[in-house]
């Protein structure tokens, strides 16, 4: 799968874009105004990329409860376009060039994932998030407390019979 790499690359790049935007605004220099654009969109992109379900053995685990439930956000090609929109203007400000290139790489990875037919799964979207049960279906869950210690014969005799154990 390529989409996990695209997601992680994008998350890291969005964080770097945010930090670089702060630096670009503080340092001044040519086209520092694009730093404001990066500072506004970088955190939004990071928030978008952070909730991600990934597969751990037989379960899907979410990193964070999803903040976005819009149908388009879950589509990989939408992510590709969003990355292009954020990255292309920032290419023209030198401190933002490197994170913008990384975002373009993420956009290409998302495009490749779309062409390969990969899908992004929200964790609550399907039955994959149900707890694993052994083959055969029904099972008993394990007791949370250890079983009571067996009573000695003397204690049994004195108590007048078997205990509930």
């Amino acid at each position, binding site marked *: 799968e390529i989409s996990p790499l695209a997601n992680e690359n994008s998350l890291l790049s969005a964080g770097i874009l945010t930090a670089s935007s702060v630096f670009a605004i503080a340092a001044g220099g040519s086209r520092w105004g694009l730093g404001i654009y990066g500072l506004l969109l970088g955190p939004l992109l990071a928030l978008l990329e952070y909730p991600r379900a990934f597969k751990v053995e037989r379960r899907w685990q979410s990193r964070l409860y999803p903040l976005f439930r819009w149908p388009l956000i879950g589509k990989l090609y939408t992510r590709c376009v969003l990355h292009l929109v954020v990255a292309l203007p920032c290419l023209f400000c030198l401190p933002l060039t490197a994170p913008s290139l990384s975002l373009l790489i993420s956009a290409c990875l998302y495009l490749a994932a779309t062409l390969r037919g990969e899908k992004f799964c929200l964790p609550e979207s399907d039955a994959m998030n149900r707890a694993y049960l052994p083959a055969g279906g029904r099972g008993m869950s*394990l007791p949370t407390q250890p079983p009571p210690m067996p009573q000695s014969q003397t204690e049994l005799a004195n108590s007048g019979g078997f205990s509930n154990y």
Partner: protein
Amino acid sequence: MVTKFGAIRWCHNEGPRTLVLIILLLVNVIIFAVTLSHYEQSDAVYYHRLMLGHSLAFARASAACLNFNCALVALPVCRNLLHFLRYLCVNKRLCKRNVRRLIDDNISLHRALAWLICFHAALHAASHYLNIERFVHAFDLPAGGNSSAGGSLLRTLSLLPGHRGINPVQRAGADPLVEAAVLLPGWTGLLLLCLLVAIVASAATAVKRARFETFWYTHKLFFLFYLLLLVHGMAGVVRPQSNLAAHKPAACASKFQLWGSGSLPECPVPTFSFAGSTTWMWLVAPAAIYAIEKLLRVSRRCRRVEVVRAVQHPSRVMELRLRCPGFAASPGEYVFLLVPEASQLQWHPFTLTSAPDDPYISVHIRTVGDWTKQVEQLYSQCYGKGDLTTGERDLLPRIYLDGPYGTASDGVTQYSVSVLIGCGIGVTPFASVLRDVWHQAGKTRSLRKLKRLYFYWICPDCRAFEWFAALLQDLERDLQRMDGDDYAQLLDIRVHLTGSVETRQAREIASREGDEADCLTGLRTRTHYGRPNWDLELRNLAAKHPDTSIGIFFCGPGQLAKDLNGRCNEFSNSTSSVFYFNKENF
């Protein structure tokens, strides 16, 4: 809580690793400080300081740290180098136990170096951004000079005849982005940053769990990273002054209009030259070590490996027994297997499940993925045939073996009391350790220091590990036959089933409570249901073995590893025994 045993006990587990990280940070600080101080004080870069301020010194200092860290980052993941160091420590006993345990923590060192590279790369890039802006700004000052003489000095330094000035920007109205992209260090620097982001992103757990090859092949981009790093400093943009004896910058700076004129012979035109990049000096040693690693792998591919037998075990487990002349492994070590008919490029790691005294090398392969399924199809024709004849072996698909490589289990017999904890598939490394203990106890009676071995097997259900349960049954039976011998009490097995139990199964377990052997595992030791209470277990161990160094060897999920590590430190502090936590990295 720190008791009278105090922080000293904490140091047994965490001390060596913490010390190495502190030394690494100190070396970085020293390199940074020395380089910064040189560029802030040296006369050879006096004019550069006038033009660029402090950003040049910070850029060069972070570059020096980058050279150091990039030289070291590949070494903790060179398996053959680590195996050699482990051999020196364990077999030749050239270092203490705590130093040997550092080798098991190689990934932590690799990550620490990676984060230092990221930090210095960010500092280096930010400093050079400021440098480019100042180069452009210096050139754009008017030729007649502005209100300050400094402005004209900077322009003069930029326009020295024959493009020998200190300013790579050579035209007015330059765009910093274009100038950075045109310069060799500029575009290589941008590419290096993108590669670094991709390599770090590929190391995320989500990527590795989704598809390990994505992480593996993206991490291989480090080769391109090193190439670009070598080329990055070759353009010589920062050129120190070369005629310091003839031209003293402090004295001549204010008289820049008279440089080279006959009226001021003590201030000729300053000349600047590039002494050459030093990055290659830092990278030559790790490049040589990496080249040796690759050569060793290629040479091992020439080694003849034969499949002697293939055994089918329940729950889709295949055991391959191999023979390889000259191969020698210690218990718990692992190898890489390549089956070209399944995949030309993929080497897959498997722990050896045979002991050194066994007449064959065995690996147990669980068929869960594409590669393992293909391998099973290739060798399933051998099921039920027993040991193959020479003719039959020659007809089988070729298999190659790289290794062996050591793990933390090398140190099991270095403790008088050792505790092996295997969770799920993590039990596999301990198969060969237990077999080796069995061989040594039965034959040579030489187990070095080991007097007592506890084995905890934790899994959701035993169905995937019937082969391992059979091994434990044999062990238990043979060791208990040594009646009256010390070794009869050597092994203590605890099996914990953590998965849910079907109702029918629970009734059967309850009805067979009085049987001699456990109904699930076949062992005399009863199966426990639920996770072990580690506080109780460690407290009991400390009570049974006071004033003892107890080695805990764990192979399983990371969260439990952290939890156990913390408890080992806690009980080392609060009891007279010391618990050394060793984790298998696989």
